[in-house]
């Protein structure tokens, strides 16, 4: 398949007073053109740092991003100059964040901010850019866009602000949209609207989406393929249908079992005992071993590689597949 983004051996480390934090520790994945890849994991697993590393937004120092390659349209973005990188960001590769209020400038109207992005990346005249901005606001279904364009962010609701962020991110027709927890701060009825909007825009514009979330429900709704991260590494990678029907890694199994659901009656939620390891003190072997009910001596000593278990389904676990009596 034609890969828009290929990440090979990405490592992002932070030098801190309390030692080296290995936030992302050797991950590889692909984002094919026009597809939605979900990156899922709990707080501190490194999913957001992964997206910031791809975008070139990790502050250095203290951060250090290393990789064999991060290929975007077959160009290694880690070898680009700062200026080339800036051109790419917000142009062909753009990003939306969890909290739209903190990513929008409160002293400028939303229109000024969208127009600024368009002018930075295209040769449009200011007048054409304004027309384009209104068109974008209409695209993200903001009612009476021609008037709302002159509103300040604080005049808008959380859902509207996230629509503005999406309009801004899409204004230069990106090939890749990175969405980092795009609906986490929103109420559930608004979340449904935004997820629906993203899928609709993807169908119309054909961009690839890398969606980062802690919510497996969101993943099930929008992703084609899923990467599960734990403690800085990818532990499982599969098509969305496979991941939910045939999860292989014990962490994925426990995570799926711990979600409260409205469509399944279960007396007790499954739990994963303990907490995630600190990123400056990772276990030597499999990083999930201290919390894994299946772990043995080998798991504690020897880190398992991510290997194919069936076509398109990879797992980093010595015990996989867990034998199931059928």
């Amino acid at each position, binding site marked *: 398949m034609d890969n828009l983004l290929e990440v090979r051996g990405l490592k992002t480390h932070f030098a801190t007073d309390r030692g080296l934090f290995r936030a992302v520790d050797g991950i590889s994945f692909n984002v094919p053109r026009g597809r939605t890849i979900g990156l899922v994991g*709990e*707080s501190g697993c490194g999913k957001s740092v992964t997206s910031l590393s791809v975008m070139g937004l990790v502050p250095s120092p203290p951060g250090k991003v290393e990789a064999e390659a991060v290929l975007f349209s077959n160009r290694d973005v880690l070898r680009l100059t700062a200026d080339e990188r800036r051109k790419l960001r917000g142009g062909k590769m753009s990003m939306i964040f969890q909290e739209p209020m903190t990513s929008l400038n409160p002293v400028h109207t939303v229109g000024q901010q969208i127009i600024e992005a368009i002018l930075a990346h295209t040769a449009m005249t200011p007048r054409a850019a304004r027309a384009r901005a209104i068109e974008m606001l209409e695209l993200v279904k903001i009612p009476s866009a021609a008037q709302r364009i002159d509103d300040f962010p604080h005049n808008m*609701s959380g*859902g*509207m602000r996230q629509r503005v962020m999406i309009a801004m991110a899409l204004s230069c027709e990106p090939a890749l949209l990175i969405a980092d927890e795009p609906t986490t701060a929103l*109420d*559930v*009825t*608004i*979340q*449904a*609207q935004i*997820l*629906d909007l993203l899928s609709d825009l993807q169908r119309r514009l054909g961009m690839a989406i890398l969606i980062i979330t*802690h*919510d*497996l*429900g*969101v*993943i*099930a*709704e929008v992703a084609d393929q899923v990467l599960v991260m734990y403690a800085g590494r990818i532990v499982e990678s599969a098509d*969305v*249908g496979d991941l*939910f*029907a*045939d*999860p292989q890694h*014990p962490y994925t*199994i*426990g*995570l*799926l*079992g*711990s*979600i*409260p*659901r*409205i*469509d*399944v009656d*279960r007396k*007790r*939620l*499954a*739990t*994963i*005992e303990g*907490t995630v390891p600190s990123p400056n003190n990772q276990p030597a072997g499999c990083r999930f071993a201290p919390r894994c*009910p*299946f772990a043995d001596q080998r798991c504690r000593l020897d880190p398992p590689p991510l290997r194919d278990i069936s076509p398109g389904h990879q797992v980093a676990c010595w015990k996989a597949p*867990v*034998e*199931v*009596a*059928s």
Partner: protein
Amino acid sequence: MSDAPSNVPVLQVDGLVKHFAVTRGLIRRKTIGLVRAVEDVSFEIARGETLALVGESGCGKSTTGRLILRLMEPTSGSVRFKGKEIADLDKDALRRMRRHMQIIFQDPYASLNPRMTVGEILAEPLRVHEIGDDASRAARGRELLDIVGLLPEHARRYPHQFSGGQRQRIGIARALAANPDLIVCDEPVSALDVSIQAQIVNLLQNLQQRFGLSYLFIAHDLAVVKHISDRVAVMYLGKLVEISDKKTLYDRPLHPYTQALLAAIPKPDPALRTKRVMLQGDVPSPFRPPTGCRFHTRCPHAQARCSAEEPLLREAAPGHRVACHFFETIPAPTILARAGLANGKFAARLAAFEAAKTARTPG
């Protein structure tokens, strides 16, 4: 307090109202209007029962919780705890009453004093209520830590030395310190990761069984609520729109808002991915709520009467009340398929996961 007859509900809330004045001007403050945060809310909680209060941001669910504990003065309405009117109590009597009604907050870090050790945090409610002496309070503190799944030596540590889930356990231990009857849980798991959330939900369920607690469980997440509650009350813009036992509410929701909320939850099963009927627009401002039914601006079934006349909370079946003019006639929603994760190998793998965990747990 303990001598009230056991058939009296732990909590009876009747016609609870809270209006906040909106003012303008720094020197001469003028009231320019009212935010009707809670409007005529009534419900009961029986002994050992969990009532969930659900709704989206700004619906008044947290304000209701605070009014019940009288952390805020209600504008009007009655709150009776074990049959006794709370509004009639003077300051001292109210403080004594609070021993029996506790609260757990969403953000455990913000609700624990960073300068106190966990031992001091747990002893404080006992000190305030003049229960025991230093030695017995310290012993109770160690017992509480054990009850919530922490270690006795944790008593010497400070809140910042704990993870989010552990801090929430400390918050729960503090709420339990003086043996309350009712705990108001205000979004207790919303800030936690899903695997930690499951630990805390299970802990709350264990504690309820063990100590016969009643919970008012305030949450926005209908999936968590389905797991923990006996009955559910749904709020929209300060008003109760539907209240019923859990099974009825999830199997046959009658209010269009409840139906929309249930439909909007992302289902963790790609097989259920379908085009949904979605609520359009945002929640209107509680400063100028819509006339008539407050939901009519977003309701797919709204008719002329809905914008003119406010619907009363009417009985649809015993214990099931709905505030909608047309709940008898609006079409029933397609309740989602219940196959879900029962298919595939997930269920068997989860069973293996749980069995392996049990085999490893000593005792």
